[in-house]
């Protein structure tokens, strides 16, 4: 297992390097620069600004100097917010996004898991069709529609929950977590239904039933462990997807997370901030994929021996 993890970490280095390099040059080829604005900038001012941020150097030497700083963990200053570093912005935005992502995953697991298991226990019954139809709606409904809808009902009409914010007003974390979790809940429901149905037809389930175990014990103790496997391997990419894709929710609910920095950075051509967020998120995605492989191996003895032999 240790070897497996070691090799995966080793593989991550060239992947990250490629991501950084491609992003570095791609953002430079996009038309418009960080200091282009509606009001034109006099050449002398533009020159002074570019000199302050080393943009007057040849591109290739900027690249090497960026890589040098990156190796030391320094993601550079932002162009849009003078006096702030990319490291500082990530350190401010990431904990918020991560908390939101964690709650969203919990919502997805609890709601999706229950719906999936309920559906799998009686395939092709009404309860199966109802929960799978709701799951399909969840997958199809975009978050920018679901968010405002939930806000309208629970925030404005019923006045039960705040319409925006994160940690400012009591209960303001509920609607964003549910909105972001809903789509993933739908996926989890479909995956756990498939997984459970496969497991529940296995011989060892029949053995468990033959032992006289009550049904809920069979489902929870024997069925769930195997049935949840597809969900576990989905969790890594899902969490990474949530982190990098929380922008819409952060905008709709006015949350000060990383997603908003990232998207605004692209609009502002804030080269260092785009790069910093990309590198950071790429690292996280690699990490979560690795973690979900490890957890899947832990839950699945067959996979464990495969991994162990590497």
């Amino acid at each position, binding site marked *: 297992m240790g070897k497996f993890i070691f090799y995966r970490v080793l593989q991550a280095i060239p992947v990250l390097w490629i991501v950084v390099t491609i992003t570095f040059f791609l953002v430079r080829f*996009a*038309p*418009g*620069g960080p*200091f*282009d*604005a*509606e*009001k*034109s*900038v*006099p050449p*002398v*001012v*533009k020159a*002074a*600004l570019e000199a*302050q941020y080393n943009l007057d150097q040849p591109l290739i030497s900027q690249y090497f100097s960026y890589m040098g700083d990156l190796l030391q963990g320094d993601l550079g*200053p932002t162009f*849009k*917010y*003078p*006096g*702030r570093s990319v490291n500082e912005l990530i350190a*401010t*935005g990431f904990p918020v996004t991560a908390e939101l992502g964690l709650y969203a995953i*919990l*919502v997805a697991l*609890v709601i999706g898991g229950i719906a999936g298991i309920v559906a799998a226990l009686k395939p092709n019954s009404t309860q199966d069709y109802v929960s799978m139809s709701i799951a399909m709606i969840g997958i199809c409904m975009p978050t920018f529609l679901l968010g*405002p809808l939930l*806000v*309208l009902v*629970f*925030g*404005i009409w019923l*006045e*039960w*929950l*705040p*319409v*925006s*914010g994160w940690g400012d*007003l*009591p*209960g303001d*974390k*509920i609607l964003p*977590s549910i909105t972001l979790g809903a789509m993933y809940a739908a996926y989890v429901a479909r995956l756990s239904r498939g997984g459970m149905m496969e497991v529940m037809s296995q011989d060892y389930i029949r053995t468990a039933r033959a032992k006289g175990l009550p049904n809920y*014990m069979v489902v*929870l*103790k024997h069925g*769930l462990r195997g049935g949840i496997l597809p969900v576990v391997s989905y969790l890594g990419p899902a969490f990474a997807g949530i982190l990098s894709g929380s922008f819409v929710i952060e*905008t*709709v609910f*006015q949350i*000060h*997370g990383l997603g*908003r920095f990232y998207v*605004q950075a692209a609009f*502002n051509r804030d080269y260092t901030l785009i790069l910093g967020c990309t590198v950071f998120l790429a690292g996280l995605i690699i990490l979560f994929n690795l973690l979900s492989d490890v957890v899947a191996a832990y839950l699945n003895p067959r996979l464990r021996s495969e991994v162990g032999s590497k």
Partner: protein
Amino acid sequence: MSKSCSLSSSACSVFAFIQHRYMTMHFSFLSWHAKGVLILCATLLLSSCGSGESRVESGNRDGVLHIGNFAEPQTLDPHIHTGVPENHISMALFEGLVSAHPKTLQPIPGMAERWEVSEDGKTYRFYIRKNAKWSDGVSITAEDYRWSWERASSPMMGNQYAYMLYIIKNVEAWGNGTLKDFDQVGVRVIDEHTLEVELENPAPYFLNLLNHHSFYAVPRHVVLAHGKMTDQYTQWVRPGNIVSNGPFMLKDWKIYHQLTVEKNPNYWDADTVKLNEITFYPVENYSTEERMFRAGQIHKTEDIPLDKIPYYRANEPEKFRNNPYLGTYYYQFNVTRPPFNDVRVRRAFALAIDRKTIAKDIMYGVVDPSYSITPPGLSGYNPPKLVSFDPKEAKRLLAEAGYPEGKGFPEVDLLYNTNESHRKIAVAVQQMWKNILNVSVGLTNQEWKVYIDSRNRLDYDIARAGWIGDYVDPMNFLDLGLSSNGNNRSGYNVPEYDQMILKTIPEASSPEQRLEEFYKAETRFMTDLPFVPIYNYKTKYLVHPSVKGLHPNYLDYYYFKYVSLEKEGN
């Protein structure tokens, strides 16, 4: 408005029940997972049980104004920032040498308690009040202003608004690096509290300019404690470091979250200030902002989605504000290439636009149709009205230019930056040109920076543009047509026009003469028609009725020191 926590309490009890059931089942494999998950969920829901008071209600009680402020401020350094959101905050934190009346924008004493103007209108002497202090109690002196203006206009500073100071003698040469010694510019310290400024030419709007953030003084002692004079990458504007001279001072700044200012006890006119605090929220999404307003989370929005306007007009008109805003929305032609290098074609296109329909039907009547590049009501100036909606004349001109009934007209595109209302207007104008001139114009939308780049490179036929004035004077609009102005972006290059703007108007013998010269210049500009005005901007936003003293004005400047909150207005 109040929020009950009935959902949360019922949800809490359901979760408590489920949690209890699970914990009593003793499943060896799942129990701790399930417990962990359920406890977290329950915690999440439990956190929703709280007080039922909205921010507007508590704000009215405690004297705290909550306002939507569109975007995260770039910085609070008045010599670096360029945007409207930053300006709103800067106006709370700082005050100019001369301030302005909150309604009329006429100059009133600010940091200077009085001033004298020489007979030729070129030299101003300002007497800074003796009790002018920074928020840390340090006195504000004439040297602070001299130093700050040296900083603001220094070529090393990278201040995008440095050109505002070019009105002062020799500052332009200093600003573009040809003059190396700031002592040669027209700013002199007479004594600790007296500052003398010499202008290049008489400029009646100079006193208004002093109210602009590029002319604010910054605390020399704090800036230098955190870096060099012209460093951009410094920490002096952070909470705990920054000191300011306005009615408020910075209390807290959480990036992308909120920024709070509190009353400055060292402000010379602190007795007038009624608010205790102001919190600014960077809400980029207008729909989110409108929902926050409806839920009582903010007192004032920065803007309002167009489709919400009919509702507020009909049902809550007391909350909707729509006032003239110094700006013009226009289309510009690339006059360097056919077919728009022909003034007849430009004129034909301009006369085929029905501005009233655009203002009324597309913009819900929240803007005014515009027939000149300068907005109406600029210091006694009445612009000429040389374009109107005249389909007959438009057709005639196009035929005269060699395209009768639009025959043989080349393919051209209308460029705009991606935005719903720009798109709607473009589609309507495209249809007007099709119906009246029988020409087909393609529509191209580009992302903001790409669009700016295309305009800078003159890579377009017709482009949407807008200009918001920085000071109330026709010069601020008419100098857009200068061949040397980077904001021209149309290729319009007429030496006689440049001569009018750069020589004739500044050297006008009297204010009346000056207005006459403006009229002549604009007549020339609107005859050549590189720009076609479409509408004049108006502000549109929502304000809670408890907010008093937030007066509308032409620059949409907020003088927070006059603002108060009424408890009865809930």
